[in-house]
């Protein structure tokens, strides 16, 4: 059986004395009956698909509803005109998050990570970081195993769908996965990776899933940005030795608890929150077929 807790995963690392990514990969390969080589080949395919999805962003694309599209290009071009307040690197992260989430809304091919609605978070952190630090693909794959391992435990102990746990379960989980992965890339140890994951998820607890007209567009596209930027600040804290007072496993359990206490109107039904705002309702009337 795959890991039931972050603590169990870290214990396995200590006992086996192997890198964390390898422990995650081998545990999953055993569970699903594939070889390590097959697992790596699949991960490599996913990474290729993620990079391709990033390359294939089109500035002119708009979603069927017309609500989203073009902001990723605006951000990318805007940060060349003036220095972004957050600095160039974060500017690129924001642009990538917007682009990937817009590609998803506009029916382009993406990699769900962990969901389609949150597909921009992980690539927004990993792609700019790779190009800034010239990291070989081999090591990027290792970081993806760490991200997936974290996501797997969140899915086991809590959930990763907005309908079950609200946006905290989608963008929150993606953010925790990205935080853990980027700490690994930056040379942090596994404990720091998990501290970063815990902090990232903690900071998005309570985020509701309130898509306008029920579409994966507003506010989903921009929430991918906060997921990515939040992952980076959590990673920086963890790399400086800051710890999450509440252990990661307990944060995950709290996320599940918060999700179950959310009213159904705030869990992907497109009724409450921003979806229920006057403008949200007006948009819904405009874009949905009248029956």
């Amino acid at each position, binding site marked *: 059986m795959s890991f039931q807790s972050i603590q169990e995963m870290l214990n396995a690392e200590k006992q086996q004395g192997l890198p964390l990514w390898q422990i995650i990969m081998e545990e999953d390969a055993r569970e699903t009956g594939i070889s390590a080589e097959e697992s790596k080949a699949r991960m490599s395919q996913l990474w290729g698909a993620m990079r391709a999805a990033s390359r294939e962003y089109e500035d002119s694309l708009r979603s069927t509803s017309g609500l989203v599209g073009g902001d990723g290009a605006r951000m990318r071009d805007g940060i060349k005109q003036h220095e972004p307040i957050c600095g160039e690197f974060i500017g690129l992260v924001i642009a990538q998050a917007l682009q990937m989430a817009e590609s998803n809304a*506009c*029916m382009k091919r993406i990699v769900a990570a962990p969901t389609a609605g949150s597909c921009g978070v992980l690539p927004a952190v990993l792609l700019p970081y790779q190009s800034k630090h010239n990291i070989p693909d081999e090591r990027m794959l290792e970081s993806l195993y760490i991200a997936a391992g974290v996501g797997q435990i969140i899915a086991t102990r809590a959930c990763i769908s907005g*309908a079950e746990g609200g946006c905290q379960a989608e963008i929150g989980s993606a953010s925790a996965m990205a935080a853990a992965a980027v700490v690994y890339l930056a040379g942090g140890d596994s404990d720091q990776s998990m501290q970063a994951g815990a902090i990232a998820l903690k900071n998005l607890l309570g985020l509701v899933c309130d898509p306008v007209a029920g579409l994966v567009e507003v506010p989903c596209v921009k929430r991918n940005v906060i997921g990515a930027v939040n992952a980076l600040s959590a990673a920086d804290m963890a790399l400086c030795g800051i710890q999450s007072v509440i252990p990661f496993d307990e944060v995950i359990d709290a996320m599940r608890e918060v999700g179950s206490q959310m009213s159904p109107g705030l869990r992907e039904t497109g009724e409450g929150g921003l979806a229920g705002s006057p403008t949200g309702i007006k948009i819904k009337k405009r874009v949905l*077929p009248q*029956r």
Partner: protein
Amino acid sequence: MNLFDILGPVMVGPSSSHTAGAVRIGYVARKLLGEFPKKAEILLHGSFATTGTGHGTDKALISGLLGMQPDDIRIPQSFELARAQGMEFSFGTVALRDVHPNTALLRLTGENGKQLEITASSLGGGRIKVIEIDGIRSSFTGEAPTLIVHNLDRPGLVAEVTSLLYNQSINIATMQLYRNRRGGTAVMIIETDQLINRKAVEAFEKIKGIVKVTYLD
């Protein structure tokens, strides 16, 4: 969930339930029909009916009927592709009872005249379940090789089918039996661990009392 349920699938957006799952429904329906559907009447239920257009559910279903998988970049153009291949299709809405909010009913006519009516739900993460086939309740996902046998409700037919499978060394993973009424029409839905070869499927069709055999690999 395994690691590749967390990272992945690679899919055309925007929604794993409303887009990727809808492609799967169309794909499984096409496989079950066994030939190119020249006519498709599609009825959408629940959230598929209300937010389907914005999620490309309609285009996704047609893509599946054309034989595409959820990562096919031609999904947004599926209407044009279907028309070019001579497929006639229409969409409507329906209110079904006691079903998942993401459900579609498809009435298909194949190029050689085969007909099929199926109702299927998209359960999330791109996974689906066929809940009705030709008016008879069912429950299968299409993830394993699946044999669907329509037969007259008579003694011995289940034994004939399972012994034919046994002769081919095919192990049954799950098996479900349904009928519309005593002595009426029955359906066996058999999920297997191994693939069933074409010849064996044809052999099923020759058994007296078996009306229709559909195989999904």
